[in-house]
């Protein structure tokens, strides 16, 4: 509107069209709402109308939808008012979803406000802003026709009796018209903003998006976890078994082979098979350790400590099994932390402690190394922090130069009492 070309652009017309259609739509809305309420009220006496009253409650939906469409007349940014998808197909689920939604009731509120208050304002604004300057501009015309060339009244207030004055008033009217165009723009803009605030709730939409994002992240992590297990199982039941069988066959062949180059080659092949088996075993373990699935986090952490090159004291006491994703995330955090201890810290001893209190899992990994670790710099911890945050948990690292380094993980979760865990005996 502050642009110089505003008066010559389509915007004043669009503003006028917006207000004009607003007046019409509002009047129609009022009529429909009154009619529906009256009919339903009358029928309610016969109890048949009671369900129909729900229709009144839902009447905000079509109004808001029409209003959002009308908003495009004046607003380039489309206003979205997405409603939630019903959980199940069918009218009943749709009704329950809608009636439970805040947006539905806000839209009903808007429809009532629109029907009672806003459309007369629209009508008034468009009338005043258009008719006032037009009638002033038309003064010479009025003087010639209605006034018979002698006198006419401008806005029924001032009497004009000469042609020069009439022309002067007409010029003034043109100025007034320009002014009114701006006023129209302001009025339509304010009106559109009000509509937007009431029916296009950005917050709800943002909330919905955040919920959707979070759940899609959780789905991703779950899919990732399932894939890990599948790969582990495939390697375990396929490649590993075949390699063991191969190694066994080679071992038997060595027994039968007479000493000589053949026996030497067999021995080499046998060694290589054994080496491949060892590597494959380590690989499978890194993908998803069996002890985690079978015995849970406590045993898996003890196992990780066993594997660590730096001696590790373990003091983890858990009441039972934890949900799978929590166990996995916590385990991989501990492994990554211990790997970092062995690789970078120069520590001589590390300690893993933890427990489950007040519905939260706590784990703490500390070492007596030189410190100075930074989770943000090229360490696998960032990815793990992401995985922990998907579970609503937190990962904190304290590592001042000179040490000691302390890593804390906290994940809210319910523990499953021992014995009822997902564990076949």
């Amino acid at each position, binding site marked *: 509107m502050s642009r110089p070309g505003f008066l010559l652009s389509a915007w004043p017309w669009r503003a006028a069209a917006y207000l004009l259609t607003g007046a019409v739509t509002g009047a129609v809305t009022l009529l429909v709402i009154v009619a529906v309420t009256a009919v339903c009220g009358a029928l309610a006496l016969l109890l048949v109308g009671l369900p129909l009253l729900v229709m009144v409650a839902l009447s905000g939906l079509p109004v808001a939808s029409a209003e959002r469409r009308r908003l495009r007349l004046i607003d380039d940014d489309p206003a979205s008012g997405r409603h939630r998808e019903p959980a199940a197909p069918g009218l009943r689920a749709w009704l329950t979803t809608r009636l439970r939604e805040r947006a539905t009731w806000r839209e009903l509120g808007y429809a009532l406000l629109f029907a009672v208050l806003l459309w007369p304002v629209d009508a008034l604004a468009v009338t005043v802003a258009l008719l006032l300057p037009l009638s002033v501009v038309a003064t010479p015309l009025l003087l010639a026709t209605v006034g018979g060339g002698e006198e006419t009244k401008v806005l029924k207030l001032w009497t004009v009796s000469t042609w020069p004055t009439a022309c002067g008033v007409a010029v003034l009217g043109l100025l007034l018209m320009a002014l009114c165009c701006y006023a129209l723009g302001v009025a339509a803009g304010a009106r559109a903003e009000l509509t937007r605030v009431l029916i296009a709730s950005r917050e709800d939409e943002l909330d919905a998006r955040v919920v959707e994002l979070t759940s899609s992240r959780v789905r991703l992590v779950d899919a990732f976890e399932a894939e890990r297990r599948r790969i582990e*199982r495939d390697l*375990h*039941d396929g490649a*590993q*078994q*075949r390699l*063991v*069988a191969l*190694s*066994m*066959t*080679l*071992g*038997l062949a*060595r*027994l039968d082979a007479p000493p000589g180059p053949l026996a030497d080659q067999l021995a080499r092949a*046998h060694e290589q*098979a*054994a080496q491949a*088996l*060892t590597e494959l*075993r380590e690989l*499978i*373990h890194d993908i998803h*350790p*069996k*002890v985690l*699935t*079978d*015995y849970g986090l406590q*045993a898996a952490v*003890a*196992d990780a*400590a*066993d*594997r660590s090159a730096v*001696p590790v004291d373990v003091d983890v006491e858990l009441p039972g099994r934890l949900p799978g994703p929590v166990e996995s995330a916590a385990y991989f955090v501990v492994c990554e932390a211990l790997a970092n201890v062995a690789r970078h810290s120069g520590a001589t001893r590390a300690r893993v402690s933890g427990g489950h209190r007040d519905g939260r899992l706590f784990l703490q990994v500390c070492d007596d190394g030189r410190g100075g670790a930074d989770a943000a710099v090229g360490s696998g911890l960032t990815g793990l922090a992401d995985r922990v945050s998907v579970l609503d948990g937190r990962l904190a690292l304290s590592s001042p130069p000179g040490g000691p380094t302390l890593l804390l993980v906290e994940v809210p979760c319910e523990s499953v009492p021992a014995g009822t865990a997902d*564990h*076949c*005996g």
Partner: protein
Amino acid sequence: MLAEDSVLLREGLIGLLARFGHEVVAAVGDAPALLTAVEEHTPDIVVTDVRMPPGFQDEGLHAAVRLRERRPTLPVLVLSQYVQRTYASELLDSGDGSGVGYLLKDRVGQVEEFVDALHEVATGGTVLDPEVVRRLLRRRHDPLQHLTPREREVLALMAEGRSNGAIARTLVVSEAAIGKHINGILTKLNLPLEEGTHRRVAAVLAYLRG
């Protein structure tokens, strides 16, 4: 008696055992079948995989532990694809820890060592995979801190199920020296010489159970 769900390995193991003059009275593919087959055949030794149907978790191990509960003297050799202290402890805790073995599946390839281990378990010995032993030695410092390095070596080899002669050959010393070391270990681990206890097993268990 053999329990292994992979047909490939099962057939291979049957062939291997037959070659060394052992008879496989039954070869089954899942844990429930193992339990019923043992009832039926009363074998000299049970060789079982850890991970087996129906759940592909640790059914084999649990079947072995249950068998040992029913018949504490039944020798059981468990093959695992993983070195898992938890599995080993669970197994050693069944019965008095004698006549059990816990080996990585890879060791099957070392045909002769495997057959030796099988024999050791069948005659009431305890066999732990070298990998498990290595971890235990690294981890369990406390009960072992009074042992000399050589005594630890001897203890590790004992845990692997080697006889005195075999240990002597590995360390290139005389069998008498090994006997002396073992006595030293037993004294330091405070294991009294009693009739009827399997001292070698007791020594291994002493530090395993902490």
